[in-house]
């Protein structure tokens, strides 16, 4: 273990390996195929408590599929995926998981909900006959909006805010439930450079201060190298899995299928 890795505050202690119920995500010989064409093949790795794990890969490499498998939105064709020790398609403890998709799926451009209403969905804790939001839930919603920097947008209509603001709204929605695991699928797609920077410093705080395990699907090698603690490179199967400092030109060349050079920037210029 070199100095670089030791300086990182989040480490996995191999000696006291956590029990299966403490491991946020575990892929166990996971295969998935659409119409018998394999999309992900024989995936075996775990994401440990407190990690900031990045999933890196080119377009169509199966990154989003892998996330959907992890969240039980897709069922593996063979093998299994465990969420906190439970098969993800039978998982019930959803309050432990926060999910931020690439974009919202609603296609109606005049969707009538306010930002606050969508963030409130994060406080949902199962069906009840007379659903209502309690006072402490309201303050949790306020806190989450504050943390995501969208407090002033609370009464705006969802369809009237920008893509970047919608992304922050989805983060706030995920944070309301105070999750142990936050899964994000290319959360900064469509967000400008300044917004991206703010976003990453927020996620860094969530990981380091609130000890939330983060899984982030990303295209951006620079961001992965700078922010994540571990990285899984996937191109249908796993090309590399390990601490980011071990991610080198060989692994990246194997991932993208052409020679890749890694250029290290001057520390003063790493932030845009």
């Amino acid at each position: 273990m070199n100095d670089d890795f030791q300086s990182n505050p989040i480490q996995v202690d191999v000696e006291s390996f956590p029990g299966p119920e403490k491991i946020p995500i575990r892929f166990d010989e996971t295969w998935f195929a659409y119409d018998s064409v394999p999309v992900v093949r024989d995936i075996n790795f775990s994401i440990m408590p407190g990690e900031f794990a990045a999933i890196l890969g080119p377009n169509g490499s199966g990154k989003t599929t892998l996330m959907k498998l992890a969240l039980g939105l897709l069922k593996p064709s063979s093998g299994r995926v465990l969420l906190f020790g439970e098969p993800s398609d039978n998982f019930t403890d959803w309050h432990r998981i926060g999910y931020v998709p690439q974009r919202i799926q609603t296609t109606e451009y005049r969707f009538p909900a306010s930002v606050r209403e969508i963030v409130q969905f994060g406080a949902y804790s199962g069906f009840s006959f007379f659903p209502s939001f309690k006072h402490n839930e309201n303050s949790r919603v306020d806190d989450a909006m504050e943390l995501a920097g969208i407090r002033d947008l609370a009464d705006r209509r969802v369809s009237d805010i920008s893509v970047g603001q919608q992304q922050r709204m989805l983060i706030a929605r995920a944070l309301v439930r105070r999750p142990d695991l936050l899964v994000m699928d290319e959360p900064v797609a469509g967000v400008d450079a300044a917004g991206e920077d703010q976003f990453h410093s927020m996620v860094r705080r969530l990981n380091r201060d609130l000890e939330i395990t983060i899984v982030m699907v990303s295209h951006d090698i620079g961001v992965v190298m700078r922010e994540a603690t571990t990285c899984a490179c996937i191109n249908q199967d796993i090309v590399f899995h390990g601490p980011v400092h071990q991610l080198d030109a060989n692994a990246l060349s194997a991932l993208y299928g052409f020679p890749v050079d890694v250029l290290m920037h001057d520390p003063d210029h790493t932030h845009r």
Partner: protein
Amino acid sequence: MCLCMIPTIRIGNLMPEIFQYEFMNRAIVASVLVGVTAPAIGMFLVLRRLSLIADTLSHVAFAGVAVALITKSFTPIVAFIATATAAVSIEELRVRRLLPGDAALAVFLYGALALAVVLISASDGFNTTIFSYLFGSLMSVSTTDLWWMGILALVIVLFLFMFRFELTQITFDPDLAKTNGVRVHMLNLSLAILTAGTITVSMRVVGVLLVGALIVIPVLVSIRVVKGLTLTLIVSSGMGVFVAVFGMVISFYADLAPGGSVVLIAISLLIIVEIGALIKRSLFRSTQLMQSSDHTHAHEFHAHGANESTTDERHSHR
């Protein structure tokens, strides 16, 4: 049937003429029930761009009516069973990706219409009845129909009230709803069955051909005028009751087809609110332009920046 043959109840001279006919009282109660339920279910269809499912299911209901008339069975039950079966099948085909959503709708729409046409052509003698189902009829709502409509409307309103948070989450994003512990598939199937129920209830009043309009148009009006999910749901139902009852009253006095009157009033309302929104938007733009031109005279550089950000904002909105 001539109006003068209908027995009337006269409760003093204060009662408006319309309430003196028992069939009209029944038609108005039916309009209220339909006005509440159709747009309430409709909100969850419109926001998911599933508006045309109502049209497909109404054609299936029509085939159900034809089967009921041929077999001399109780029409609402047969129509409901046919529509609910179709609704569940369409949902299953969509989820299992066996057919694209719109293709499944087309298959059921034309299949049901073809079945109805064949059944009608194979039998003589119920042309007038079929006509009342196609276009709606004030006089065809019986007390038994009213009981059925009342029970179904109660079930639908209770279901929507109890599951409103779950349904709105599914409407917003099914994957997010699922990772929030919402039982998406079960609720989608229930919504499909209740949509079938709503159509069976509504076709008596507005007719098979126009039932989809009552499910969709009041929701479009409401989305334009209010913000917030619960408020949109309540206003949609309010608009539904208004257009259904107002349409009934007009069709009574002007002797017009009730379904057509109801839908034309709904569409007029939609045109009014859309024009209102357009005027409001252009007024807002011209105020902004005036402000920005004032700004240009004072600080040319800053005004350029403001215009840029407006353009960006418009692009980022969906």
